[in-house]
């Protein structure tokens, strides 16, 4: 559905994206994890053609590639980008914003009342946007994406300013979008939340995808324990740490359980319980752990 080939862009003194190649299919939610300033927004801007890459190509549905305005309009009919809160029209109501997006992409605003109900915006959506709180504005931005209802959605910092209940609500909506076969890119700093609905998470570093975490496939299981660096050094000196173990961000020891017999697993748990002051967990590595691995 969407194919990025050799996308490169650099600003003076800094490479933002370096020969990035990537393919995404419909019905996928793809998380994009990276610290600020590492190219998430630039990547979205290039996909939407708001920023011109130095080289490379964005191919949509195997045929459209922003070669002319006609192609751009055709792609934009299938793609929406998440509006920034500061860009909402202060003098217009939330309903006005929703009607604009619904009518521009679908030629009708019939779905707007259902979206308002779903996102529990009824109590404020008729007021002017300038009266909204941060969370209300964020929900409106998300509702605008729902109103546009395009097959591809690029959501940058979608959970910004939302409380726990609203994060859960938006997460449910994202899961529904996936069921409807939409391709959704989500850049969010709520990394644990990405694990709930994303099919895969890509990690950008130095302009490249350094890791692609598949969340829907079977993953390696680790024994994870909080461990101070000095304890880890001692363990290292014993030379007993299994191959493939990870020590993430100088605080989390992850031992791969695959290949260990039950007896060995029990032994390691007993050893770690003695030296680890924090809780110990068993499971695959999550987005948070990978994030710390690559960016700490």
């Amino acid at each position, binding site marked *: 559905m969407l194919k990025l080939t050799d996308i490169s862009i650099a600003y003076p003194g800094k490479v933002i994206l370096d020969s990035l190649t990537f393919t995404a299919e419909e019905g996928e939610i793809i998380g994009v994890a990276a610290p600020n300033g590492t190219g998430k927004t630039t990547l979205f801007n290039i996909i939407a053609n708001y920023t011109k890459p130095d080289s490379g190509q964005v191919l949509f549905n195997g045929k459209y590639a922003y070669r002319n305005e006609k192609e751009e309009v055709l792609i934009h009919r299938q793609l929406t980008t998440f509006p920034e809160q500061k860009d909402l029209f202060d003098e217009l109501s939330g309903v006005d914003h929703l009607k*604009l997006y619904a009518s521009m992409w679908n030629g009708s605003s019939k779905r707007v009342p259902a979206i308002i109900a779903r996102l529990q915006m009824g109590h404020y959506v008729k007021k002017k946007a300038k009266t909204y709180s941060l969370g209300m504005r964020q929900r409106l931005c998300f509702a605008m994406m729902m109103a546009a209802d395009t097959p591809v959605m690029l959501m940058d910092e979608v959970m910004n300013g939302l409380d726990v209940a609203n994060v859960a609500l938006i997460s449910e909506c994202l899961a529904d979008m996936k069921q409807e076969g939409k391709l959704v890119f989500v850049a969010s700093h709520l990394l644990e939340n990405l694990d709930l609905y994303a099919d895969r998470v890509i990690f950008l570093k130095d302009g490249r995808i350094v890791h692609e975490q598949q969340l829907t496939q079977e993953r390696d299981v680790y024994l994870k324990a909080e461990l101070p660096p000095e304890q880890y050094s001692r363990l290292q000196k014993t030379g007993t740490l299994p191959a493939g173990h990870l020590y993430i961000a100088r605080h989390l020891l992850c031992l791969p359980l695959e290949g260990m017999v039950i007896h060995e697993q029990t032994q390691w748990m007993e050893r770690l319980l003695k030296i680890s002051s924090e809780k110990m967990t068993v499971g695959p590595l999550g987005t948070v752990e990978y994030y710390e691995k690559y960016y700490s």
Partner: protein
Amino acid sequence: MKRYYLLFELKMLIHNRKNWLLGLALVLFFPLYHGQYSQQPIESLKDKKNEEADQYNSIFKAFPEEMRETEEGKKIYDNLTEQASLVNMQRFYLWDDTQDDDYIEDGLRLNELRLELHAAGNKGVHPSFVVSEEAIEKELALLNYYRAKDVPVVSDPFVASQYVPAALDLISGIPFSLFVLLIGSTMLLHDRLNRSVMSGLPIPYMQRVGAKVGLHLITITVFLSAAILIGWVSTGLKAGWGSAVSPVLLYSGGTYTAVSAVRYVLLQSVSFLLIGLLLLVLLLLLQELTANTYAAVLAIVSLLLLPSLLYAAGVPPVGWLSPLAMADTGAVLSGEAAIRFGSGSMDYVHAFFWFIGLTLFLLAVLYTLNRLRYVRRTSVQRIVN
């Protein structure tokens, strides 16, 4: 989609308080300016004819005695004598409304005699007393109009039918251009301030341009129509309505014709709309190029002021400036622009063609610039790949 985009742009336009304020200022200008206009010393027809009659005393005094002895000189002297008589008869007829036909007949004969003198080279007449051919044409146009339309010769200059064309002439040029530029200055505002909401809308660039320019032009039309209507009604109620067919002089095809006040107002309105369209498109183009509204407005105002500034500085009028000078549509319709530039083709028909031609040219530039964005992008990708 285009309809929904138009509706959205319309909503944004309605929410724009600055435009309402400008519209209100334009609407209020017409009734308010009448107060000042009615205090102006406007020369009446009686005053004009009295002055003309007085001039003949000087003309006869200055006529060379030696010329009166010649056959040619005698003819000229007789011509001037008849002119003086006709002017004095006109003065008499002006006292009685029922003698308008006589006034017109004598006026036509008077100007015929003046033209004969011109043909004879105005020999013996001091240059300062020669009535210009332009003035003769104007008077003939008015006299023929009075006769054809059966309109009273003497009219109150402060009634609605006289005031509205004069007020429109006053706001033509820089004042109206500034009004258009200030209204249009926010055309691209929300595309910039609300970029992430607006930039992804699936609508082609030229359709956006069309919607923005079209809606702003409609706004200007509505305000202008309201201003003319309110100006006409308020003046009518205050000072009298006048006659919709009262004559106003119009310069066209190198000569003067008299047209009805209503026709003049319509022509002036069409001129305003065409210049408005041209300025809106130019403003949009400059805003795209400079990404700065103030710079764009300042550049256009400077451009429009250029002919007047050069004229004031004593620089002889140059041909390429004439389209800019045509922005003062009042001067074009009255023939002032044609006299200043010494060009008989500076009439409203040529001005309309210029406005339409320049607008189409600027639209073509906008279209090409938009196309080039993609051409450049594709070629960059090709080179890098």
